């Protein structure tokens, strides 16, 4: 079977590109990331700036900010996560359909930042799996764009077909974030 030549008539079939399913799926996914702005503090202002005309996140195919988790696949956690808010973030994350990614924007979302206090979760990765961390307090819009491009590179390396068939564990927090 492996050496069999497949007959192909370009007049009938048109032009064909031969590739891997993973490459196609990832290419589609990476250019249509729909972020969900989880704006919790001042980082959200920079996130808004990144969405504005000056920095223009749409150049990279991920400008469709959706405020419903059902319509988004990338949560941008922008700001300080308090313990009171952690529950909400977790629930919203769970409401997002697979595949989904998380960007921890800024020092607070990444590690609690300067808030070493009783009220602040010391990094959103304790409650949801994070794909990309951005340093800064707050990070500039360029840093966010860089992180989103890094996320696109990461998406390109995913084994999407394999993941499609894989049964997800009940507890996605302990899943290796692909």
């Amino acid at each position, binding site marked *: 079977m492996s050496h069999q030549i497949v007959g192909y008539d370009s007049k009938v079939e048109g032009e064909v590109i031969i590739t891997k399913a993973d490459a196609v799926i990832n290419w589609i996914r990476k250019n249509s990331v729909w972020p969900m702005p989880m704006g919790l503090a001042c980082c959200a202002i920079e996130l808004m700036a990144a969405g504005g005309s000056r920095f223009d996140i749409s150049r990279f195919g991920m400008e469709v900010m959706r405020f419903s988790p059902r319509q988004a696949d990338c949560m941008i956690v922008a700001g300080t996560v308090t313990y009171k808010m952690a529950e909400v973030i977790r629930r919203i994350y769970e409401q997002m359909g697979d595949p989904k990614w998380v960007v921890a924007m800024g020092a607070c979302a990444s590690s609690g930042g300067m808030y*070493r206090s009783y009220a602040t979760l010391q990094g959103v990765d304790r*409650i949801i799996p994070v794909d990309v961390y951005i340093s800064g307090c707050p990070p500039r819009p360029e840093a966010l764009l860089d992180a989103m491009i890094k996320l696109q590179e990461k998406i390109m390396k995913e084994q999407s077909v394999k993941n499609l068939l894989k049964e997800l564990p009940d507890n996605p927090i302990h899943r290796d974030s692909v």
Partner: protein
Amino acid sequence: MSEKDTNQLIGRFKYLSERDSVDHYAVNCPSDHLIDFCQILRDEYLFDMLVDVTAIDWDVASPRFTGIYHFYSTSKQLYLRVASDCKDNIKPSLPSLVRLYSAADWHERETYDLMGIHFDGHPNLKRILMWDDYPYHPLRKDFPLAGIETPLPAADVAEQTKVKVAAAPMMGGPFVSSGDGKMSQTEPTAKDESWNESKAKGS
């Protein structure tokens, strides 16, 4: 408040006493008279705005808790600070001013949340910043800045993620400025960086 008015205030209300202050005029008022006094402040002295309600924890001193009220008169453009000690050190309480100033509502809830002062007569005295089941009042002197381990507010999320409200890693903190010298050289830093989350202090 002009000198004349203040003397009037202390002279008229025998239960008041003058309070040290570096800015605005301030008086001490016993909690029994607080409502009556504030009613007169609002209606006769035209202090129509309650700017802030907060409290002080004096730690080991007694009375331990003092409620602080900042009033402002929009017509006279004057501030007045009223302080009122809580009689009980264990279960501190003050009368609620919500009936007089609706602004007191959230301020008193915050003071209750963070300091644990009970405001008698408040229509909805529940926590405003921390979640309802939180067992402590974090701005009290005996509460550590890093926090105390408690369960996460949502039981199902806590079970899934195995996350607790943990004491924040201080990593040699708290991060405070020494306060003397150039600002560029006295940025808040940890005093002792020899320990961190994975390496215990003094090990």
